[in-house]
């Protein structure tokens, strides 16, 4: 499965990992998404009632209590990370609004259409994410 992200995700990720409190985020993302097959990633809250292109919100019950928003295009074997926010700490939020969820959803559609995405890969030690502009 190829993993991509949109600008919003990259910006939020970089903002969060600059804070010591959220230092586990990168590892949590790697552990959760990489080296997994599609079925293993189809859990959490499905926001769009779609079988083929589920838009998912995942609660990761780690130290930061991160919430990850992503879309899976099952037919293409692609996963798109849309957004991340922690539950606690200086950038913590209990949830995002329905309008924000809809906006992110629209943004990923546009990004896929325009090929305006980053491909996510791991570095040689498999410890850090690399964002490659497509």
């Amino acid at each position, binding site marked *: 499965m190829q993993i991509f992200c949109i600008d919003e995700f990259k910006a939020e990720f970089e903002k969060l990992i600059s804070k010591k409190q959220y230092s586990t985020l990168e590892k949590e993302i790697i552990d959760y998404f990489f080296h997994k097959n599609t079925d293993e990633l*189809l*859990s*959490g*809250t*499905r*926001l*769009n*009632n*779609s*079988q*083929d*292109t589920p838009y998912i*919100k995942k*609660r990761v*019950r780690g130290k930061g*209590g991160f919430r990850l928003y992503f*879309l899976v*295009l099952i037919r*293409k074997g692609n996963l798109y990370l849309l957004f991340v926010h922690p*539950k606690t700490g200086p950038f913590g939020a*209990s*949830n995002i609004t*329905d*309008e924000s*969820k*809809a*906006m992110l*959803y*629209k943004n990923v*559609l546009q990004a*896929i259409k325009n090929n305006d995405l980053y491909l996510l890969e791991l570095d040689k030690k498999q410890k850090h994410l690399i964002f490659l502009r497509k």
Partner: protein
Amino acid sequence: MECATKDRIKNTVDEVRSTSFEEKINSSEEKINSFLDAILDFKGMLEEKTTKILKLADKLEEITWFTIDDNECLMLLNDLIAQSKDLHSTLIRNYTHFAALKTKGIAKEEVKEYKAAIDDFKESFSDLESVFFYLPELPQFKETTRELSLL
């Protein structure tokens, strides 16, 4: 030695003797142990409640993977959300009692985990409501789903 002085010393000896005897009979170690046992029981009860609440939150999440398109099921979901809101109010009321203990340093971590589980539960039923009642009503959201299905 004056008689009065002697009596006072004797009285003090008696007092020390009886206190010593009482301490031996009514061991405070036993009381401390039962107090610590009560704290452990309390922690265990909180952990049990926390696990139960998290399981409920997971169950609510799982429902979002069902395809629900008839009004009868939607009505059931509406009941489920209402019941969940009611349960949440009760849990928060209970939490306020537990939080008082937390401020005294008792079961701090367990009370924190319990509150986090209540928050997760609230998030789950709020999301459930969004998924089946609010997001499908946003025209932009429906259109995006349609366009994505064509990719």
